[in-house]
């Protein structure tokens, strides 16, 4: 296992100098403070459920007759659900998370989360959640601002067709997107070792040269942007490959897109490079048609979420990191209470968020949204999502929430008191 100290000893990394904001250069700073006794090194892993997850079929009010009326083909039968309390249950595909809830006390469910005047555009609503603000045309994200307030390495774990989320924009150094640690090498066709080194030198030299051209750095500073991205990439690629090699998971991960991303997060956490914020997304929740009930498309997605997060938690627990871990799920909106004619659901609003980790306060926060007092057919939110963000910022990451969110939001009791 490579230790943080080994990692930072490598002078070639820091040799890029202060003018180049490589994220690893930043990690050096972050790591130094984290090494101080008593310094917190909590970790936040955001899991985004893209497309609008059907909250009503995720956290189910299974004793409510209205639920079965609204969902004639999609409702989950009482005897199939995974009970959490006398009237609230998880979808049957979420058996693993239900176990973490009952056996490990490691799951907190916040019900009915949303924001005022909910927007039902995927893209606008996602922007609002990413920005942590309902202001028009956001240009940076709540996690980007968090990283600005408290710099640390962070990672977006995404496949090649996934673009870096707005939530991470505004960070002092661009947060890298990584899909795997193996494949991260700059290749060359070199006639000899010396030739390869010469080629590599030219590539890295000319990468830094691009940004130094003053006005020819071009409209919008695009050339500078390319330069910085290249330099970050070249500085980090081989180091990351080295971290991946020695890792052994303590439990098997499901072989799914989300499982693989979370395994990668575990490698980076255990690699000890001081990263504290991770971002992953799972797409496919826009279930306008053929959503399915206890089995089917939505069930498969929920199983992926449940099995993936559960394996991640147990793996990190095995490596001694569970008390540092907080996984937080969200989706841009929930779905319409009443199902549509395509055996699916249209865009809605209020929906649950889940928090998983060794230090969350196990239980259910807030009431299930009313199924009779709907607004335009949608569940009404009771908890503003920024209250959850504020709690995570203040009580988990140790960042001034007011500065990040631009306002005061009353904390929610989602963490165990220490």
């Amino acid at each position, binding site marked *: 296992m490579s230790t943080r100290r080994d990692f930072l000893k490598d002078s070639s990394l820091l040799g890029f100098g202060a003018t180049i904001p490589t994220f690893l250069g930043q990690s050096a700073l972050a790591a130094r403070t984290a090494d101080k006794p008593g310094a917190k090194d909590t970790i936040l892993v955001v899991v985004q459920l893209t497309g609008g997850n059907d909250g009503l079929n995720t956290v189910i009010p299974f004793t409510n007759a209205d639920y079965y009326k609204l969902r004639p083909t999609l409702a989950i039968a009482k005897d199939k659900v995974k009970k959490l309390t006398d009237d609230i249950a998880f979808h049957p595909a979420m058996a693993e998370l239900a176990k973490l809830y009952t056996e490990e006390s490691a799951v907190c469910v916040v019900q009915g989360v949303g924001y005022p005047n909910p927007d039902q555009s995927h893209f606008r609503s996602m922007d609002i959640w990413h920005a942590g603000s309902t202001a028009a045309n956001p240009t940076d994200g709540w996690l980007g601002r968090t990283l600005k307030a408290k710099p640390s390495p962070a990672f977006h774990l995404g496949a090649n067709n996934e673009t870096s989320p707005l939530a991470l924009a505004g960070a002092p150094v661009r947060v890298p997107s990584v899909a795997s640690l193996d494949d991260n090498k700059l290749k*060359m066709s070199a006639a000899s070792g010396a030739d390869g080194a010469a080629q590599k030198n030219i590539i890295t030299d000319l990468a830094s040269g691009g940004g130094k051209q003053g006005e020819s750095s071009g409209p919008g500073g695009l050339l500078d942007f390319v330069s910085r991205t290249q330099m970050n990439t070249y500085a980090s690629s081989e180091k990351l490959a080295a971290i991946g090699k020695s890792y052994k998971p303590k439990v098997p991960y499901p072989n799914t897109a989300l499982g693989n991303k979370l395994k990668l997060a575990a490698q980076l956490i255990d690699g000890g490079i001081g990263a504290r914020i991770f971002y992953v997304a799972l797409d496919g929740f826009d279930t306008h048609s053929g959503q399915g009930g206890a089995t089917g498309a939505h069930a498969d997605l929920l199983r992926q979420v449940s099995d993936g997060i559960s394996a991640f938690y147990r793996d990190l627990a095995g490596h001694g990191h569970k008390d540092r871990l907080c996984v937080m799920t969200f989706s841009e909106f929930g779905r319409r209470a009443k199902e549509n004619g395509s055996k699916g659901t249209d865009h809605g609003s209020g929906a649950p968020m889940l928090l998983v980790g060794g230090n969350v306060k196990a239980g259910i926060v807030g009431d299930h949204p009313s199924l009779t007092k709907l607004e335009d057919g949608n569940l009404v939110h009771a908890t503003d999502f920024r209250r959850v963000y504020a709690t995570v910022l203040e009580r988990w990451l140790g960042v001034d929430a007011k500065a990040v969110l631009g306002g005061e939001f009353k904390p929610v009791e989602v963490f165990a008191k220490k």
Partner: protein
Amino acid sequence: MTDPKWAWAPYEPSDANPWDRRKVGHLYRRAGFGATVAELDAGVKDGHAKTLDRILNGGPESEDFTETSAFMASERSMPSGAPQERLSAWWLDRMLKSAHPLREKLTLFWHNHFATSNAKVKNARFMLDQYHLMQKHALGSFRELLVSMGTDSAMLVWLDTTTSTKAAPNENYARELMELFSLGIGNYTERDIREAAKAFTGYGISYGKGALNYRQHDNSEKTVFGKSGKFKGDDIAKLCLEQEACPRFIVRKLYRFLISEAHDAPPDLVNPLAEEYRKSGFDTGKLVSVMLRSNLFFAKETYRSKIKSPVEFATGIVRGLEGTAGALPLAEALEGLGQVLFAPPSVKGWDGGQAWLNAQTLLGRNNLALALTSTEDTRFGSRCDPAVALAKHNGEIVDFLLGVFLQGDVQPAACDKLLDYLKAAKSVKYPAYWSVGDVSNHRVRAVAHLVLTLPEFQLN
């Protein structure tokens, strides 16, 4: 601030802003898929007017191209269950070889606009039909394109219209029609969407084509944008086209595609073009012509104000070297760079701009450039060999490669460093079995790879 009169007036070369090789390269990158040496030469020699005419009119396709492409798209070669890569490869091949690159480029614009993915549609025939619809109207009428899209089979599946019924309408298409296809957010209400969704009930696919099933259609009166009637789908599209926001929305998007993604299009620049666009009955060809011929298009602030898309990156290399590349492996490689044709990530299309580049995609670009030009990669072989291209054009290595790919416009250090590399290469110990030719070819290919990793080459 940019004066709109000046911005959209036709460009005329001047001493301060002459017509040169850089501008030819810029035009070929934006309006097509990159230039060859011959195209750069002809562009400089013929002047701006003739070159612009040539690009805007496009050439007639050769019989060979037309027949081969049609054969590859025939039901026999591309059955409905054909794999994704075959679809994307087919289009990539057209982009590399078409005599009317601008039309393919604008088809790509519309593909990103009406972003539909075969990942859900799962029917190559439907995807090809949608391609043909977009290609037909690429430089034609947006009005016809928008109206026809409502009964396009791939779109009907993609946004669930096929399962939307009178009893329980599905809002998916109505919402994206307004939000992403014609107006943009803020120009409609949730009520407009719910009412419009009723008009799109009952559409299905019959014998492979979109058709209205009246038994499932809600024929009641709907009120959309304050107008009431027993609207059907095409009526809603026409109502959208009447909204003031519509031409502006398209002009803004085309501005980002053709002019600049360094900033949003300023309203002062959008409004006059939007007005012309509306008056012309949404004649996209005219709009594109005004943009490409304009002062603004050839202004300093427009030059290199975009990040190349993966498709532009790859086709630019192949065209520049006058090589060929297997379209299938090329399509597969582009997946690693974040762009699969006929499979955009969501109905919003590719985000583009800076989102194209991250640690992985950047390494992916470098490594694809190497695979194409090294001649050592089994996927691509030696069909795109910089040494062959150099031999044909007979120049100095560095000069030739910087010239064809970047028109020589790079950081001053680049040229020196590459020349130093060649000088130092004399002392490199090459494998004993390499011939003199092997050694010199290897140097050309190595320099080509280095040139293609320059930050400047990522820009368009």
